[in-house]
C-alpha cells in the first residue's frame, strides 16, 4: 500500500506541514480541519446574513418592494438552515477541533481521518441546499422546521433539502463522536474529567446531545421523503397518521438542537470571564452539573414549541413546568459568572466585552423564553415577532457573540499574532448597538401582534420595523470589521507572547505561541495540569 509506505519513511519529520491543496483536501491535522470549519462557518454567516438583509430590506416599509412573497419565504427558510447548520454548528465544531486537543493535552483528535470526512461533507451538503435556489419552484419556502403538509407541497427543491439535511446530520454525528472519543480517551495521563476546562465539558455534553438527536431528525425527514414520494401516510390523517406527529418528532430533535447551539457558548464564556476577572471560575463543579441538567431537561420540554397545536391539558402543564425548570440550572450559570467577576480585577479587552454582552443579552433572551414557556401566554405570543426576538437574542448575542469572543480570545494562540484592540472594540460596539437596535424592537412588534414569516404587514407596525431594519444593516455590515480584524492580525499583528492574557489558565496556554502543528507530541507534565475543580 503506497500510502502506508509513505507514512513509514516520513515518520521522523517533526512538525512537517504538508503543502498545497493536498494539505486541505487530505487533512488529518486538527488545526487545519478546525481552520476549514471556521472559514466555512464564516462564509455561511455572510451568506445567511445576506439573506437576512434581503428579509429586512423587504420589511423596511410595509408593502411589497423588492422580492415576491415566495422568494421571501425561501429567504427565511434558507437563512435559518444556513445559520444553524452552516454557521453556528460548524463554528463550534471548528473551535472544538482547535481547542479540545490543546486543552486535554492530546496531539490531535482521536479519529483524524473521520474528522476530515465530517468537515468535507459540509460543503457538499450546502451545495445541495444552495443549489435549490436554481431549481424549478425555487428554494424551500416552508420554514426551516419543515412542517408537513406545507413542506410536502414544495417544488423540485424538496428532495434536495431532505438529502442536504441527511449529509449535514452525518457530518454532525461523526464530528460529535470524534469529540466524545477525544475527550474520554485522549486526555493527558492523570487528567481527571473534573480537571478539564469548561469548554471541553460543555462540548462533551453537546456531543452527547448531537449523537442522540441528529438521527431522530434523519428519521423525521426520511418520513417526509416517503410521505412525498412513496405513498406512506405518517403525517396524513386520511391514512391514520397525523401532521402534528411530525412536530413532536421534529422538536424532540429541535429542542436539544438549540442547546447544541448554546452549550459550547457557556463553555467559552466560562473561560473568558475568569481570565479577564483574574479569578478562578466560581462554582466550577456546579457549572458542570448545571450543563448536564440543562442537557437532560432539553429532552423533556420539546412540546413547548407547539402549545397552540391542540394538546391535552396534562401535556401542556407538563411541558410548561419542565420548561420553567430549565431556568434553575441556567440561573446557576448566570450567577456563577457574576460571582466570578465579584471583586475581580477586571479588564475589558474585546473577548471580555463580547462575553459580557453575552451575559446580559443572553439573559434577556432567556427571560423572554420564560415568558414563552407560560402556555396561556404563549397562545398570544406564538408565531409572532416576539418569538423571533427571543430566539435571535439567544442565538446572535448568545451563540454568535461567544463564537466571536472565542475567536478573539484564542486567535493569538492560533496564529501567534495579536488582533488590533481598537479594531476589535470598534467591531464590538457596532455589533452590540446594531444587534439591540435590530432585535429589541421586535419584542414590541410581537407583543403588538405582528406575525412572523410575512413579507408585508399592517401599517401600525411600520415604525419599529424601520428601526429594526436599520439595526440589521448596521449589525450586518459591521461584521466586515470582524474579518478585517482577523485578516489584519494574521497578516501584520504584533507578535503574541506565550500567554497573551495574564489571567489565562489551562493546558492550551502552556503551549508555545503560535501553537505547534501537532499540539502535544508527548503528554504534558503532571505539574502543569489544571487543578481539580479549578
Amino acid at each position, binding site marked *: 500500500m503506497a500510502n502506508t509506505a509513505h507514512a513509514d519513511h516520513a515518520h*521522523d519529520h517533526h512538525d512537517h506541514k504538508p503543502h498545497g491543496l493536498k494539505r486541505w483536501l487530505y487533512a488529518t491535522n486538527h488545526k487545519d480541519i478546525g481552520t476549514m470549519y471556521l472559514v466555512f462557518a464564516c462564509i455561511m454567516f455572510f451568506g445567511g446574513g445576506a439573506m437576512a438583509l434581503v428579509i429586512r430590506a423587504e420589511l423596511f416599509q410595509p408593502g411589497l418592494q423588492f422580492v415576491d412573497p415566495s422568494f421571501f419565504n425561501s429567504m427565511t427558510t434558507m437563512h435559518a438552515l444556513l445559520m444553524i447548520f452552516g454557521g453556528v454548528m460548524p463554528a463550534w465544531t471548528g473551535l472544538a477541533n482547535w481547542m479540545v486537543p490543546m486543552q486535554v493535552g492530546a*496531539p490531535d483528535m482521536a479519529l483524524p481521518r473521520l474528522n476530515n*470526512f465530517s468537515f468535507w*461533507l459540509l460543503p457538499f451538503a450546502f451545495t445541495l441546499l444552495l443549489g435549490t435556489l436554481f431549481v424549478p419552484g425555487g428554494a424551500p419556502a416552508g420554514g426551516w422546521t419543515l412542517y408537513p403538509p406545507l413542506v410536502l407541497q414544495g417544488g423540485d427543491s424538496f428532495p434536495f433539502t431532505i438529502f442536504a439535511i441527511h449529509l449535514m446530520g452525518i457530518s454532525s454525528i461523526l464530528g460529535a463522536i470524534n469529540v466524545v*472519543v477525544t475527550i474520554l480517551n*485522549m486526555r493527558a495521563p492523570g487528567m481527571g474529567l473534573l480537571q478539564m476546562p469548561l469548554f471541553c465539558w460543555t462540548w462533551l455534553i453537546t456531543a452527547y446531545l448531537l449523537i442522540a438527536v441528529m438521527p431522530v431528525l434523519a428519521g423525521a425527514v426520511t*418520513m417526509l421523503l416517503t410521505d412525498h414520494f412513496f405513498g406512506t401516510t405518517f403525517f396524513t390523517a386520511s391514512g391514520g*397518521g*397525523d401532521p402534528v406527529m411530525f412536530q413532536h418528532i421534529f422538536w424532540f430533535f429541535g429542542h436539544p438542537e438549540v442547546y447544541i447551539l448554546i452549550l459550547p457558548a457557556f463553555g467559552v464564556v466560562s473561560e473568558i470571564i475568569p481570565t479577564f476577572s483574574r479569578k478562578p471560575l466560581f462554582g466550577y463543579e456546579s457549572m458542570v452539573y448545571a450543563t448536564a441538567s440543562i442537557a437532560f431537561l432539553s429532552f423533556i420540554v420539546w412540546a413547548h414549541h407547539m402549545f397552540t397545536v391542540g394538546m391535552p391539558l396534562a401535556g401542556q402543564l407538563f411541558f410548561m413546568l419542565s420548561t420553567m425548570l430549565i431556568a434553575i440550572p441556567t440561573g446557576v450559570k448566570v450567577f456563577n459568572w457574576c460571582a466570578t467577576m465579584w471583586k475581580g480585577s477586571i479588564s475589558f479587552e474585546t473577548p471580555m466585552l463580547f462575553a459580557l454582552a453575552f451575559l446580559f443579552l443572553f439573559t434577556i433572551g432567556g427571560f423572554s423564553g420564560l415568558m414563552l414557556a407560560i402556555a396561556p401566554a404563549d397562545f398570544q405570543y406564538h408565531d409572532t415577532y416576539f418569538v423571533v426576538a427571543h430566539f435571535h437574542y439567544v442565538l446572535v448575542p448568545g451563540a454568535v457573540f461567544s463564537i466571536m469572543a472565542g475567536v478573539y480570545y484564542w486567535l493569538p494562540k492560533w496564529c501567534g499574532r495579536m488582533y488590533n484592540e481598537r479594531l476589535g472594540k470598534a467591531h464590538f460596539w457596532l455589533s452590540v448597538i446594531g444587534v439591540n437596535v435590530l432585535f429589541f424592537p421586535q419584542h414590541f412588534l410581537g407583543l403588538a401582534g405582528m406575525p412572523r414569516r410575512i413579507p408585508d404587514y399592517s401599517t401600525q407596525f411600520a415604525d419599529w420595523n424601520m428601526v429594526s431594519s436599520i439595526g440589521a444593516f448596521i449589525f450586518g455590515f459591521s461584521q466586515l470589521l470582524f474579518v478585517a480584524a482577523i485578516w489584519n492580525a494574521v497578516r501584520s499583528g504584533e507578535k503574541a507572547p506565550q500567554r497573551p492574557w495574564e489571567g489565562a489558565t489551562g493546558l492550551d496556554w502552556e503551549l508555545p505561541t503560535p501553537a505547534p502543528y501537532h499540539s502535544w*507530541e508527548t503528554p504534558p507534565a503532571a505539574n502543569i495540569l489544571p487543578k481539580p475543580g479549578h
Partner: protein
Amino acid sequence: MATTHASHHHDDKYYVPHDSHWPIYGSVSLFTLMLGLCGWLNEWYGPYVFVAGLLMVVGLFVGWFNVVIGENQKGMYNTQVDQSFRMGMMWFIFSEVMFFAAFFGALFYARQLSVPWLGGEGAKMFNKLLLYKDFDNAWPTNGPARVGPRDDGSFEVIPAFGLPAINTAILLLSGVTITIAHHALKEGKRSILNIFLAATFLLGFLFVYLQAKEYSHAYTELGLKLSTGIYGSTFFMLTGFHGMHVTLGAIMLLVIWLRTMNGHFTPQRHFGFEAVAWYWHFVDVVWLGLFVFVYWV
C-alpha cells in the same frame, strides 16, 4: 504527507495517522449518491447518477477499510487507538438506536394517540361525530380513508407466530453462534471460530431471504404495501430499515469471516471482530422490539 511522528514501535507515544484521500472521496461519493437520488425522484433523469454514486460508496467502504485493516495488520495502531475505535463504534451504534427510536416513536404515537383521536377518543369526539363517522379506533388500520392498493381498502397482516417467529429464532440463534465464535477466538480455537462465524452470516442471509419472501407475500397477496395507511407505513419503514441493517451486518460478518480465514485477529487484539459482533447484537435487539411491537401486540 505523513504526520506519523509518533511511531508504531512504542506504545507510550501518541499515534497520528498519515493523511488520506478517502474522506474527500467519501464526501464526493455521498454527494453523487444523493444528487442522483434527487434527480431520480424529481424525474429529471433515470437512476444512473444514483447507481454511479452507490458504486462509489461501495468503493469507499472497500478502499477505506482496506487501508485501515492493512495498517492494523502492520501493527501501526497502539492500544489507545484501539480504545478510540471501540468508543467510536459504541457511540455510532447509539446513534443508530436513536434513528430507530424515531420510527418506533412514530409507531407508538400512531397507536396511542393519532388513531384513537381519529376514532373520536376523549376531547376529540367531534372527529367521530362530524368527520369520520364510520371510523373506529383499531389496530392495524389504514386510516379513515382506508388508503391502500385494493379498491375496497382491505388488507391483511402477517401473523407474528409464522415466519416472523422463525426469523426471531434465526436471529437469536445467530446471536448464540457469534458468541461461541467470539469465545473460540479468545481461546485460540480457530476452526471453531471459522465454522461458527460462517454459521452466523449464513443465518443472517437466511433471515434476509425470508424477510424478502415475506415482503413479496405482503405486496402480492395481502394488499399490504408502504402505501397501506399508517400500518403499512410503520410496518415497512421499521422492518425495511431493520432489514437493511441486517443485510449490512451480514456483509460485515462475511468480511470478518474472510479475515479470520486469512488469519487476522488474535486472542488479545480483535477490535474488528468485536465491532461487528456489537453491531450484530444491536440489529438483534432492534428485531426483538419489532417482533413485539410491530408483529405481536
